[in-house]
């Protein structure tokens, strides 16, 4: 059904790890309005779509969503962070759990995949 490619669709280099940004990005990936949910929605909708053009688009954007680099961006923000970085109030990481906040990029701009 799908095949894995051992490469990124777009290269990502994080120069400065940032716990708040990590939380924001992981939310863009798995949160309530995130990439995963959108992609699963497209892939479910395609089964009932009567228009050939739209059926193909739903299949293809649902597939592309799973190639998204957001999980990679998110993990790239965390490797050098200490436990203190993740638990101090300033980090913004402990207030709400990751995944639990919708549309954080409005106040903290980050470009979503599409």
């Amino acid at each position, binding site marked *: 059904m799908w095949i894995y490619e*051992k490469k990124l669709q777009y290269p990502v280099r994080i120069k400065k790890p940032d716990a708040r940004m990590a939380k924001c990005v992981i939310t863009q990936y798995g949160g309530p309005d995130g990439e995963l949910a959108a992609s699963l929605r497209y892939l479910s909708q395609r089964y009932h779509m009567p228009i050939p053009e739209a059926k193909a688009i739903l299949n293809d954007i649902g597939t592309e969503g799973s190639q998204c680099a957001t999980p990679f961006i998110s993990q790239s923000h965390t490797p050098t962070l200490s436990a203190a970085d993740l638990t101090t109030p300033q980090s913004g990481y402990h207030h709400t759990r990751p995944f639990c906040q919708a549309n954080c990029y409005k106040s903290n701009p980050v470009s979503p995949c599409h």
Partner: protein
Amino acid sequence: MMDLRCKMLDDIRAIEFMAVELNLFLDINPHDHRALNEYNDYTRQLHELKYQFEQQFGPLTNFGYSYSLHHWRWIDRPWPWESC
């Protein structure tokens, strides 16, 4: 060596970007011949670039979509999250 690997991957990504966008355009404009020709042209280039890359740096795909000559190179580093 790593520089060449990254350069080749960048070239693949550039062509692949064109292929993906033309694919999505063609989904909703399936009778556009200019887009179709461009799509096929980029697809040809992409096949060639991936073939060259895999000859040198090992398979990009598994499960029977790429050969792994001489030994099993799928487990070799780098994975996408370890390098470019």
